[in-house]
């Protein structure tokens, strides 16, 4: 049997007296999209920070390919192929596509201390990587990142992570700030990353987006996993209900209904 790329076993995290995550166990497999659903404050961002090495869990273990690992810093995690793409893509609006693609890992030519940033090569690789994800509109690596649409920026960030050898892609609310068309575009790219054999952790609170690409779902409520199920096991309404805490949503519906009733009587 093959080990999952990444596995969390009974992770707990507390900041001083406040428990943020309780007993989280999750597995992420190659070629699979794990959707992490949860309302604001459910602990999604803390979980991402544990996965990407920003926070160290209070207790519990992390395994990669079946072997225990511990991330002391974001660099540890990225060194092992875990790439995090944040909501706004982590790209630099006033830099050219080629330059921003290679921030921190610039290709150089020349010798000794007189290294030269190889702009031509950087632009070529950046453009090719983005085109591999089906964005054909972009053909000039000198263009500013700020000139790209939100979806294209996300795609650029994902293409960058893939180029630098990411095996696990953590996408933090990639579609939250996007319009419908742009979001669809990003979802298509997520699907392509999955087909390339990457493990994807897709964090979102938009159930529709999650259902479009997810293979596996985990719903996080107040720091615990409230549900863990596979594609097709639950309907959209059931998931939304779960995320909102079920009863809270039902109460709201009842309230609105009775308001409408009162209005009708008056």
């Amino acid at each position, binding site marked *: 049997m093959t080990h999952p790329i990444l596995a969390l076993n009974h992770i707990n995290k507390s900041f001083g007296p406040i428990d943020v995550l309780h007993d989280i166990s999750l597995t992420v497999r190659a070629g699979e999209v794990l959707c992490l659903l949860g309302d604001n404050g459910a602990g999604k961002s803390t979980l991402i920070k544990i996965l990407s090495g920003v926070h160290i869990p209070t207790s519990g273990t992390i395994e990669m390919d079946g072997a225990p690992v511990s991330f002391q810093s*974001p*660099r540890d995690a*990225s060194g092992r192929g875990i790439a*995090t793409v*944040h909501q706004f893509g*982590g*790209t*630099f*609006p*006033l*830099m050219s596509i080629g*330059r*921003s693609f*290679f*921030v*921190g*890992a*610039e290709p*150089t030519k020349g010798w000794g201390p007189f*290294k*030269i*940033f190889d702009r031509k090569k950087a632009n070529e690789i950046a453009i090719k990587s983005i085109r591999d994800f089906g964005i054909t*509109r972009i*053909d*000039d690596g*000198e*263009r*500013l990142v*700020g*000139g*790209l*649409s939100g979806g294209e920026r996300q795609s650029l960030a994902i293409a960058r992570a893939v180029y630098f050898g990411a095996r696990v892609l953590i996408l933090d609310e990639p579609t939250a700030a996007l319009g419908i068309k742009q979001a669809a575009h990003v979802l298509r790219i997520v699907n392509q990353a999955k087909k390339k054999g990457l493990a994807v952790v897709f964090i979102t609170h938009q159930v529709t987006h999650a259902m479009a690409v997810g293979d596996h779902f985990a719903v996080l409520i107040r720091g615990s996993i409230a549900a863990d199920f596979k594609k097709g096991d639950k309907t959209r309404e059931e998931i939304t209900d779960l995320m909102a805490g079920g009863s809270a949503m039902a109460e709201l519906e009842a309230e609105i209904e009775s308001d409408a009733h009162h209005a009708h009587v008056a």
Partner: protein
Amino acid sequence: MAQFLRHPEAGTLFGLLVAYAAFAVLGGQNFVGAQGWSSWLNVAAEVGIIALPVGLLMIAGFLDISVGSVVPASSLTVALISNHYQLPIPVGIAGGLAVGLLIGFINGMLVTRTTVPSLIITIGTMFGTMGLALGLTVLIKGSTGVFLVADPLTKSILGEALGGMFRVGIFWWIGGIALFYYLLHVSPWGNGVFAMGGDAESARNAGISTKRLTVQLYMLSGVVSAFVGVIQIIANSNAQVAAGSSFIFNSIMCVAIGGVSLTGGAGSVIGIALGTTIFSVVTQGVFYSGLDTNLVSIVIGGMFLIAVLTNDSFRNFAQSFSSMAKK
């Protein structure tokens, strides 16, 4: 050409041509002749050398006010070591540059170890340095000014004026432009400067050691300001504690007029050099035109505001233009 017009530097170049043409008419023969050129080039060289690292800092998202006191502190150090203590001039120069490196290091450490804005921190180090320089000079020498007569070789490298007009500082400035162009636009190091100014958090995530880069930039700014202090003492033969405060705002003016974004993330060395040129052409042009010298401040202040206001619109234009080009 279209590519060039999308940059804020295009505006700076246009402004320079207009300013030069205006003062060529008003200032007449003297201004367009060798005398006029030397006078604005001399001004440009001194402020221009400091504007280069200050510009890099601004692109990276920081300010450095302390340059204004590093210049005289360095001059005084050179003079004290080589005049008062009678040590060789190279030792004095090394001492002056070390003062700049040290103050830059302190700035960098304070900026990276605290959350206090760099403007506030460098105001603090500026006053601290100024007070220390004044106190020590009075303590050692008993006065606020120190003299130093340099040997001919040192003078010819750092303080000579060719034909009695063009100071060698001009060549150091040109060399500085080439060096900083390499650092910012050609070397991979420069990419980190842009990235840090664009989004420090993302730059850190991408593996750039932002703290180290910040300290490097402040030390660069410190040592370059100290170098201008060295040039001043060698050229003028005397050092005053109060000298140098004009560099604080003048360097920021040059950088901003040159199209560097005040919030960081964008700018160019060519822009900084053009901004410096415009600044010095205007200050000297007004003088040659026989106009009221109060006009200098008004014109420079106005240009500064126009530059700051238009820099962002140029960038918005650049971004929207490139996304509209192919749809």
